[in-house]
Every structure is written in structure tokens, then in C-alpha cells.
């Protein structure tokens, strides 16, 4: 990208007022700059959930991991991020801030539904998001199995489940169940319970 293209994208980020949209625009620009150099950035974590649900869940940072190899070195990350005027780093190049919005450049992507990524095309570029199947199973696991019960993660998982059951996003149940049964999670029982609870809640509240 030319400096003029980068500055035009940064202007879009600054002009956007909504946190979710603003974070996705900035992630799209960052993604474009890394893809230019042969890397495959993928948005994970709370920002990915926010993309799928608009659930008022994300914090002020967007997490980006790397699909496969190569992964950028710390020097490459600094070089690529420094193409954006006004971007500052923190924590040795792991975290970067622009217009009050943080991006964390993390490690290799851990993802089991490798053919179910989502892509959002924005005016600032293209952003790839971790599959909803991975996000949902991961959140159910975090809420009900990993360290006991976590109310915030459970509420988040239920919102994502409601979005799935309402067919607001494409979703492959066979893939989700395969992931839930995997050694990484072993939480098929919990996933099924959340699905039943949300189905009942939606049936009770829907006209």
C-alpha cells in the first residue's frame, strides 16, 4: 500500500464512532499490510465474537494471530506497523495503539475448523475472522469447563448460540460437535446444554 492509501484508511478508522466497526476497520488495515508481506493474519478473541454477535463484549484491544507459517518476527512486526503514521507500540512490539484503539499481535493461530473462516471486506481492506464454530466451542469451554463456571463467558457463549440458532450467521453443527469432542475441549455435553437452554429461552421470548 502507498502512504496515501494507508492514510486514507487511517482516516476511515478515525471517522468511525462505533467501537466494533472501528476495530474491524483498523484490523483490516493492519491485515492488509501484513498480507502484503506474505503473512496470514486472523482476528480472534473478543473482537471475533463481537463481529458475529454485536454483543457488547469486546474490550479496547483486537487480537490478531497468524495462520500457519511464516509468522512475522518482532522486527518485521515493528517495521510493518511503523508504516502507519501515528501508531505507537507497547510491551515490546506486542501491542500497538492508534486513535485510542489497541491491536495485539499474538502467536500462531489455534483453530480446528480450518475451512470455515469468515471474511469481511471493508473500505480499509479485508479482514479474516476465526470460524464461529471454534469461537462458540471455545467460549462454552471457557464458561463451563476450563476453570469451573464463568458468568461473563457463559453470557457471551449464549449470545453467540442465539445468533447461530437464529441463522444470522453460517454455521456447521457437525463441525462444531467434532471440535467439542476433540481432546482440546471435550465439552460436547456442555455445548449441548447451552444449545438447549438458549433454544428454550428463545422459544419463551419470541413472538
Amino acid at each position, binding site marked *: *500500500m502507498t502512504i496515501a492509501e494507508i492514510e486514507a484508511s487511517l482516516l476511515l478508522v478515525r471517522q468511525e*464512532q*462505533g*467501537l*466494533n*466497526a472501528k476495530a474491524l476497520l483498523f484490523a483490516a488495515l493492519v491485515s*492488509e499490510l501484513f*498480507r*502484503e508481506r506474505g503473512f*496470514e493474519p486472523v482476528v480472534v478473541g*473478543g473482537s471475533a465474537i463481537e*463481529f458475529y*454477535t*454485536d*454483543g*457488547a*463484549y*469486546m*474490550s*479496547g*484491544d483486537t487480537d490478531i494471530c497468524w*495462520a500457519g507459517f511464516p509468522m512475522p518476527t518482532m522486527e518485521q512486526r515493528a517495521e510493518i506497523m511503523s508504516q502507519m503514521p501515528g501508531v505507537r507500540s*507497547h*510491551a515490546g512490539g506486542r*501491542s500497538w*495503539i492508534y486513535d*485510542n484503539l*489497541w491491536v*495485539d499481535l499474538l502467536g500462531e493461530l489455534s483453530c480446528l475448523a*480450518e*475451512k*470455515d*473462516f*469468515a*471474511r*469481511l*471486506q*471493508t*473500505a480499509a481492506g*479485508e479482514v*479474516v475472522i476465526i470460524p464461529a464454530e471454534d469461537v462458540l466451542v471455545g467460549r462454552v469451554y471457557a464458561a463451563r469447563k476450563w476453570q469451573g463456571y464463568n458468568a*461473563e*463467558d457463559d*453470557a*457471551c457463549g*449464549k*449470545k*453467540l*448460540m*442465539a*445468533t447461530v440458532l*437464529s441463522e*444470522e*450467521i*453460517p454455521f456447521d453443527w457437525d463441525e462444531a460437535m467434532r471440535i467439542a469432542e476433540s481432546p482440546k475441549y471435550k465439552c460436547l455435553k456442555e455445548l449441548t446444554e447451552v444449545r438447549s437452554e*438458549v433454544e428454550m*429461552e*428463545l422459544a419463551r*421470548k*419470541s413472538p
Partner: protein
Amino acid sequence: MPSTKLTIKPERSFTWEQWQARRAERRRVGNLVAPPVIRRKKSDGDEYLRETYEGERGPRFNMAFDPAADEYQK
């Protein structure tokens, strides 16, 4: 600008307009089963997040259509 080399199924590829068009409905459905705002109280990176956002973990949700915006500012 280079496109991703990852496999993306056509039904999982969204334009900005397609994504924006369903935001309010996704939020409505989610709010049927969980509170409007469920941001975690703590996580990694809290220190610099709280420094940036006056003690919070992020800025306010402030989309005009967003019922959570009012809720969060209470």
C-alpha cells in the same frame, strides 16, 4: 491489495454493507438470552487498557442504534 490465501466459503464472505445490515438484529437476538453488555471484568492486558480508558477495559459502546450504549453508561 492481496487477498487471503485461506479457504473462505462464499457464504462466509461478507461485504461491509451486508455485515452492517444485520447488526441490529444480531444484537436483538443476543439480548434475548443475555445482558446487553457483558464485557469481562479482567483479562490479559488490563494494565494498559485501564490506563487508556480511564479505568475501564475499553471505550464505551456508542452506536446510535445500540441499546447497550445507554446501558453501559449508567
